[in-house]
């Protein structure tokens, strides 16, 4: 059973000159996560809003990130990678991190250990087959871990997970003899909250600008006294659309090119934490 390694102080040394790492995470699916209608009839979103991410959204995002030379993390459903391998390969080629997000948006909250392990293995194999490299990290597609998720990930050789939402900084789990770094995120700044299922609602793109700017200002202020990092959870089907993408571009305009903001992939954070973070030894 994974046990959190408790730390009483926030102590990590980011690379010299870096004040606030910025971690962009993109969740990439092509409709597997669309709720089915009663009788398991396909939801209109299967063929619409969510598929947009794989057909167009991810390409739009890759173009933007390339332009700014920013590296991000893409959580990719196995079936999406199988259906649309080109985009995943392009992302890898641009230096982005590819991480796992289940095989087909599988919900594991009540899954057996065997089933969950096979989902993790299958996802890792599919992504390795397409990109040529082994994935190191994971996010549960519905953000709902099972009691054994973290242990399975550690046993399967993963170095980090990003399925929890309960902290401002990464922290370790001790899973048997292994350690797994948890990189918590939040839905309070998530694009899907503002871009919506399936209609723009709750502020739309302007809402994103508002919440990201607030998040940035507060964390930037706090980072003067204590280590912080800014992590955004974005959907290729949401932020990949032109209007929210423009908001992301404006946000990047504000941050990119400044040494004090380090656009890190989750694996960069994980590596840094292993070498310079708290709880290196217990």
């Amino acid at each position, binding site marked *: 059973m994974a046990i959190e390694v408790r730390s009483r102080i926030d102590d990590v040394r980011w690379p010299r000159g870096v004040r606030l790492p910025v971690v962009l995470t993109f969740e990439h699916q092509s409709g597997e996560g669309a709720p089915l209608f009663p009788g398991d009839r396909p939801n209109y979103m299967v063929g619409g809003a969510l598929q947009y991410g794989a057909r167009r959204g991810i390409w739009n995002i890759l173009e933007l990130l390339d332009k700014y030379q920013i590296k991000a993390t893409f959580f990719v459903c196995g079936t999406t990678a199988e259906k649309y391998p080109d985009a995943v390969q392009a992302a890898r080629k641009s230096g982005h991190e590819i991480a796992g997000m289940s095989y087909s948006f599988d919900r594991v909250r009540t899954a057996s250990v065997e089933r969950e392990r096979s989902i993790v293995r299958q996802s890792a194999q599919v992504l390795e087959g397409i990109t040529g490299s082994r994935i190191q990290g994971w996010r549960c597609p*519905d953000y709902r*871990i099972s009691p054994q998720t973290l242990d399975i990930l550690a046993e399967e050789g993963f170095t980090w997970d990003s399925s929890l939402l309960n902290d*401002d900084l990464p922290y370790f789990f001790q899973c048997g003899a292994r350690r797994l770094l948890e990189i*918590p995120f939040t839905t309070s700044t998530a694009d*899907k909250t503002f871009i919506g299922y399936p209609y723009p609602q709750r502020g739309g793109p302007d809402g994103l600008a*508002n*919440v990201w700017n*607030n*998040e940035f200002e507060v964390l930037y202020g706090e980072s003067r006294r204590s280590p912080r990092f800014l992590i955004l959870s974005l959907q290729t089907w949401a932020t990949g659309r032109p209007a929210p993408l423009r908001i992301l571009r404006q946000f990047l305009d504000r941050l990119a090119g400044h040494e004090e903001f380090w656009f890190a992939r989750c694996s960069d954070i994980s590596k840094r934490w292993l070498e310079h973070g708290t709880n290196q030894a217990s």
Partner: protein
Amino acid sequence: MWKEQHPSQPVRWPQGVRLPVIVSVHHQSEEATCPFPDGESDPFDYSERQYGARRGAWRLLEILDKHAVRGTWLICGATLEKYPEVSRAVKKAGHAIAGHTYAHEMMCNLPPHTELDLIKKTVSVFEDLLGEHIQGWRTCFASHDTIDLILEHSDFAWDGSMWNDDLPYIIEGHGRQVLEIPFANYSDAALSVEITSPSFPPTRYSTWQSNTPDFMFRALKSAFDALYERGVDEAAMMPLVVHDFITGRPSRAKVLDDFIAYAKQFEGVVFTSHDQLASWCRNLYTS
């Protein structure tokens, strides 16, 4: 049985106070996590809410401290047990401390003997772990018995469970009185997020929907502006309710920070606690 008593003369706050803003910080962290139909708590919701005690409460403490605001922290007994260091810091910072049920039970769904047990249990947790004899109580969704139980079986000076009035009033029964300090529906839980409620088990899909921080700020500002205006001719008060896991998030914490900065520019605005307000009200009902 009980009856209400409203002030026999117009309420007057102390000299110089035009609008008290009654600050309630709900420190409940993961206690209200939504269950799945199988009875297990939703890991996603749990994790979102657990942010409250791990980080959110500390950030709120810092903001209140920055503005020298002392308010009321309404704390669940179970939260105090799990994260005593937060409550100790709250007490040390000089905030008033009140009870917010044991584990955020929906009292409206429980029989009176269970509600009473939970009240007593919570009171003793505060005494044991914090050395604090709580004077006030806010139920999460009051039952038909809440008021009777508080009157008959507690010595609380005030209750803050109701949303039904602009100003405090007295509730009298079982040989004693308790001051009701009602709150309002512009809490952050209403303005900032749409949370799944325990009475509506979560669907398999996230229902964590948020309004923008700007929306929350504008709603607080419009409530404040209206109440400040009203405060010229008659007593008014503004209940301000924030939760550790909602407003404790950086982007929403800025709303609280900005709102306090905005409101405190106005003459006669005082941020205060329920205990303080209760002491102001003590003389209102004597005749």
